[in-house]
């Protein structure tokens, strides 16, 4: 990225990072909390309203990031944007991945680590938006049961559930082992599985770093790699085979 000279990059990283986090928190404190409060008090469907607000919040966030990070571009496959009523599985590179997917899908749910449900305000937003805890452990059993029971109807009515089946971020870009949860849910709800690949979010916000990596040529890509819609009721359908098929599709795409 010639627009930023190499000797200015460390300074630019710090300044732009501070601007991004300032925007992230201030936009919430000054604007979005009013939307959440309004939706909580007046919306007839809080879950959908909270998903929509989250979607707008992160769309605005990424618009801001794109505007202030030199050299950054986004390439989002238009097929991705038209996904509905699906379980979406995707590789995981950076903390930016879940919020990037929220910014792409207005009606979305995802699986969130249990600990986040206990964070004040944030946990309340997660619950109200209908997100699922990762494990039905103490304190979240009822929530998990309620969420799972409503998931088939939610997916049938154009909602998407996105999941990172590796369960954690990749530290070197390679694809890890997949958990079966997302595939079991797809079978349970008779929903198609959409396999997405994300590239280069880890170049913008690397794991284990507080600073955004700016002033480099970087295009963040989200692509639809394939769709798996097996006859889940068929006797020969194996969840582990479906899982391996999805992993293989994604791995081939990432290594090609």
């Amino acid at each position, binding site marked *: 990225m010639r627009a930023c000279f190499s000797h200015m990059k460390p300074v630019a990283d710090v300044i732009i990072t501070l601007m991004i986090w300032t925007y992230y928190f201030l936009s919430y404190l000054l604007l979005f909390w009013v939307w959440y409060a309004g939706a909580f008090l007046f919306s007839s469907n809080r879950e959908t309203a909270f998903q929509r607000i989250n979607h707008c919040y992160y769309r605005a966030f990424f618009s801001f990031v794109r505007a202030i990070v030199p050299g950054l571009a986004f390439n989002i496959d238009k097929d991705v944007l038209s996904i509905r009523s699906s379980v979406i599985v995707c590789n995981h590179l950076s903390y930016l991945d879940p919020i990037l997917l929220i910014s792409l899908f207005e009606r979305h749910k995802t699986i969130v680590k249990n600990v986040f449900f206990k964070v004040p305000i944030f946990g309340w937003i997660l619950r109200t938006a209908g997100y699922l805890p990762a*494990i*039905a*452990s103490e304190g979240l*059993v*009822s929530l*998990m*049961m309620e969420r*799972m029971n409503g998931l088939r109807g939610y997916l049938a009515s154009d909602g998407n559930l996105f999941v990172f089946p590796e369960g954690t971020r990749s530290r070197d870009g390679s694809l890890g082992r997949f*958990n*079966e*949860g997302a595939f*079991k*849910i797809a079978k*349970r709800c008779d929903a198609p599985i959409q396999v997405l690949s994300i590239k280069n979010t880890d170049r913008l916000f690397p794991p284990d770093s507080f600073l955004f990596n700016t002033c480099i040529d970087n295009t963040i890509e989200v692509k639809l790699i394939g769709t798996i819609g097996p006859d889940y009721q068929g006797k020969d359908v*194996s*969840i*582990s085979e479906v899982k391996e098929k999805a992993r293989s599709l994604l791995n081939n795409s990432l290594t090609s």
Partner: protein
Amino acid sequence: MTRGEIQSRILEIFKEEFEIENPGLDDDLRDKHEFDSIDALDLLSRIEDLLGSSLTQDEKKQAMNIRTIHHIIDYVELMAAKRS
């Protein structure tokens, strides 16, 4: 229903539904066979079929901490006894 009958039905369900064949009766299902919360909810539906009646929310919550086939058999026995 005898304990032996419950055991053989549960093992059949594990094979058909969860692709887990011949698990050890004391295996930690989560650690050894990736049996997760989603599976647990599906298992509860199958247990309801087995019992011929619905489980209450509290009974379902009680089941979410079950870790082994032995525990599942104990649970089904208990639920069957409550209903007889």
